[in-house]
């Protein structure tokens, strides 16, 4: 089964992102939302963790990145979605797991 994981915490203040990566299986998708979007920016340890996470797809909620002024700093290869795209991801995957 393919899971959509949502992460809403900053990787620099909380262990949530790391915990999610440790338990997400190959073929699943991690969607970064709210303060989680900072993990999708370049030039930091979270960007390294993302490049090293083989087989996992990453997406970021555009409205949250835009609100925080980091839209232009998003790493390449991370899919940007709006709320409609979030709904589509939830429908396309078999289940959704929130990492709170």
């Amino acid at each position: 089964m393919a899971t959509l994981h949502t992460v809403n915490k900053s990787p620099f203040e909380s262990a949530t992102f790391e915990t999610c990566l440790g338990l997400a299986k190959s073929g699943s998708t991690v969607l970064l939302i709210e303060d989680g979007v900072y993990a999708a920016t370049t030039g930091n340890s979270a960007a390294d963790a993302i490049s090293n996470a083989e087989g996992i797809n990453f997406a970021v909620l555009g409205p949250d990145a835009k609100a925080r002024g980091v839209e232009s700093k998003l790493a390449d290869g991370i899919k940007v979605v709006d709320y409609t795209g979030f709904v589509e991801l939830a429908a396309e995957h078999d289940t959704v797991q929130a990492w709170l």
Partner: protein
Amino acid sequence: MKFSIQVNEGPYQHQASDTAYQFTKAALAAGHEIFRVFFYHDGVNNATRLAVPPQDDRNVSAQWSELAKENDLDMVVCIAAAQRRGIMDADEAKRQGLDADNIADGFRISGLGQLIEAGIESDRLLVFGA
């Protein structure tokens, strides 16, 4: 597709309720069904009708009430969590001997079984919290 939504945080303090609202709105716009929105933990605080936020800010509770009205949403507030935190409808306030209630339009108070049922009956359950 049939979605249910769980909201675990109150308005303003965390973005969880805002994100849940935007997701729900987008799902409805895409033609999906929302089986239920369940408010748990501090999420029950979304159900107050006494909030008067600044004019230039959104009114989180009123947004939910309006969305429920337009789309005939079933918005359930967990009774145990609501009693701890002081969210009351008229019946419950009366039963508890309280002199006021504060629930907003479109919310109803019920038990945790409604959350489990939402999980069973929906194709997807999404949890928004902190």
